[in-house]
């Protein structure tokens, strides 16, 4: 106990040095806390953008469909699966979709795109398509039969506005014959996501099934959970719902392996950053402790001569290191907290960029979590005390006679 007190007091004998060291270490902690908060904001932003714009939190397909979007690979009796999904109490919304390649031709241009058939009523509940309409109107179940929604970029390329006519050409299931159908532009949407705005078109489910010649079948069933956290649980019964070998049901993490890899990569880079900062902070701590040790050589010699044991001398230095870390942590958490507060108001501008095929459309806001203010300071205190062992061992080895000779 006395050593703790002694260590604490020793620290304040040279206030300027302690302050400067604490500032340097504190900056390290503040940086770690801030980057951690920023990464959480970043992750949440990416997950939100990729799941809630269109994908949903889970999807069901015919196996192999996702690779090729082959029109033949359908889910037969989709109503049965929709009912099964809905009967699970954790599932929030379910919608059915068809999806295949096709060509869209206006008088001015031709583009190959992906044509999606959607149920306007249930689609509204899962995706943000209805909110993204900038011109015209969203599809409606009854009057939307020959209406089509296209992205803003595609509308630019085709040179069309709402109510213009366009021709869709697709290859039908089973026969492989081409089918053509005229549609009117019902609305133009803008997600600010390149792929969506440039190569997606949406029509109603019924006409799409007729166009693709797939009867009442669909290509995709998308759903969301009542609580998003459930969607990443690999043990959730929903993921084991299908008992047919040619169907698969996957969560958004599996649907976007790139995003999954990125999330992993972010964790690794956080670790690397922590290691790097600890390295540079460690050099600073050792430096400070040695300086104070050498300045007080005489004092340590006296301590030894009075009967203080080498072990206790080491303990004193380790405690000094710990006390320094405690002060630094106070600085660091304060600075980190202030930084997060400021930037969670302002946000960081990453708009118009795209990582792992996820467009960043919003500003990124760091997210404060209690653990950031517990784990990082605690780790720092332990780490500093560990680093303090080096000067501590050095202090323990002091021989009183040589030390007092100085």
């Amino acid at each position, binding site marked *: 106990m006395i050593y703790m007190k002694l260590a604490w007091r020793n620290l304040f004998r040279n206030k300027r040095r302690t302050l400067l060291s604490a500032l340097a270490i504190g900056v390290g902690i503040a940086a770690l806390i801030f980057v951690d908060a920023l990464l959480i904001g970043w992750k949440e932003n990416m997950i939100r953008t990729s799941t809630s714009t269109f994908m949903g939190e889970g999807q069901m397909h015919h196996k192999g469909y996702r690779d090729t979007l082959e029109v033949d690979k359908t889910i037969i009796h989709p109503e049965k699966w929709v009912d099964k999904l809905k009967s699970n109490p954790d599932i929030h919304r379910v919608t059915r979709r068809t999806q295949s390649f096709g060509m869209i031709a206006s008088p001015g241009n031709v583009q*190959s795109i992906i044509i999606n058939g959607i149920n306007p009523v249930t689609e509204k509940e899962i995706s943000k398509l209805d909110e993204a309409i900038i011109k015209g109107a969203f599809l409606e179940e009854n009057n939307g039969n020959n209406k089509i929604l296209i992205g803003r970029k595609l509308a630019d390329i085709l040179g069309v506005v709402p109510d213009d006519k366009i021709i869709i050409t697709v290859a039908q299931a089973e026969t492989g014959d081409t089918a053509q159908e005229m549609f009117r532009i019902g609305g133009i949407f803008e997600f600010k996501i390149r792929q969506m705005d440039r190569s997606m078109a949406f029509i109603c489910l019924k006409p799409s099934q007729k166009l693709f010649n797939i009867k009442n079948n669909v290509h995709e069933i998308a759903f969301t959970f009542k609580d998003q956290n459930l969607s990443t649980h690999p043990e959730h019964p929903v993921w084991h719902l299908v008992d047919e070998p040619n169907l698969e049901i996957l969560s958004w993490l599996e649907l976007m392996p790139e995003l999954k890899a990125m999330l992993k990569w972010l964790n690794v880079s956080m670790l690397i950053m922590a290691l790097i900062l600890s390295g540079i902070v460690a050099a600073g701590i050792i430096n400070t402790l040695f300086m104070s040790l050498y300045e007080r050589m005489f004092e340590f010699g006296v301590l030894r001569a009075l009967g203080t044991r080498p072990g206790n001398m080491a303990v004193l230095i380790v405690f000094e290191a710990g006390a320094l870390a405690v002060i630094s942590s106070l600085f660091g958490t304060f600075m980190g907290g202030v930084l997060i507060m400021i930037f969670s108001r302002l946000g960081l501008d990453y708009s118009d960029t*795209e990582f792992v095929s996820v467009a960043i459309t919003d500003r990124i806001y760091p997210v404060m979590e209690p653990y950031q203010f517990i784990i990082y300071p605690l780790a720092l205190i332990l780490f500093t005390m560990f680093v303090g062992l080096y000067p501590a061992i050095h202090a323990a080895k002091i021989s009183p006679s040589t030390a007092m000779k100085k």
Partner: protein
Amino acid sequence: MMIIGKIAFRNIFRHKRRSFLTALSMIIGFILLGISFAFGEGGYGHIIEMFTHSHTGHIQIHSQGYLDRPGLYKNFDHTRKLQAVLNTIPDIRARAPRVYCGALAFIDKKTTAIQIIGVDPLKEKVLSSLADKVDKGRFLEPTTVSAPHNQIIIGSGLARILHADIGNDIAMVSQGADGSIANDLFKVVAILKKEVDSTDRNNGYIHIYKAQEFLAMENRIHEVAVMLSSHKKSRQVTAKIRTALDKAQLTGFEVHPWEAVESLFYRSMEADKKGNWIFLFIIGLIVALGVLNTVLMSILERTREFGVMQAVGTRPSHIFFQIVLETLLLSLMAVVIGGILTVPVLWPLVSYGIPMDQPMTIGGIEIATFRAGFVPEAFLVPFLVTVITSTLVSVIPAIRAARIKPVDAMRSY
């Protein structure tokens, strides 16, 4: 003045441990900054070289408005005059004309959408790595304008969707530039490697003459891709091409560097690099505080010494310079050691890189390995940051030392 330098140099070695520890934080800071810049600047350098050589080229020339809203009709005549103008610019290493269009492709009952790219095989071989991407089969052969062959090279994705193999016929339907329905049969002569970037997977490459015939475009093309000796010259040469075209009174063209062609990637990269500068600031700050601390302490310890120096007639300004010089020399030693140590640390990161188990895309450009690069910035920036911040920081304690009053200083010990 010489004597000050000598004293400063010797002072560094009077307290070996402290000098070593101060230098250590500078060295660690140097290496860390070096690595982060080698990844930031050098790593992106690799990626840029990769995708510009894959297809994009360093500069692209289009008809006005094509890049923003590409269209079949936004084509231009690939005249001798245009080619002659481009020939006058010595920075251009290679160039290749291209034709683009979308089409539906059929084999039996299998259908899919396809992006057709008409290329000149000989020129494309020099400009891009398309020929190296061929997995099975052989590259497109040269042909004649009057009777072009119907060979096609398809991406691995197309081959899988269409169940196509070498020797198969693919029927393609599209719209001609004259408004007619274009349809023709093509023979698969090669399939591209699976590993190449995802943008290639649904592409079909045919001879440019065949593409022009198929789309009824006569001698017209959509794009000239230009390759320079380095991607860094793109904007400078773009300006040159623009003025050359203006001078020759060729209008209706737009010239874009790769930064504009792949603008999404470019913006994402710039945003990512911004992070590096923040990192630099944090490390610089920590190093600076550490150096400030040590220098302050070493001066406090030598208060008596400075008092004596002044008492025997040393000018305050000399003491000031001596301390600044001491720190400068120490930081110079630290950066030399740091520079030497950075090389072996960077070596594996440059030659092997960090492989991703899942390729990631940034702004539409696929990245399979993160590799660092030996770029001047990886040494220059840490060098400047370390030396300048350390020296600047030593100014404060140096002023203090210069202001010492000899009487008080000599009493203090």
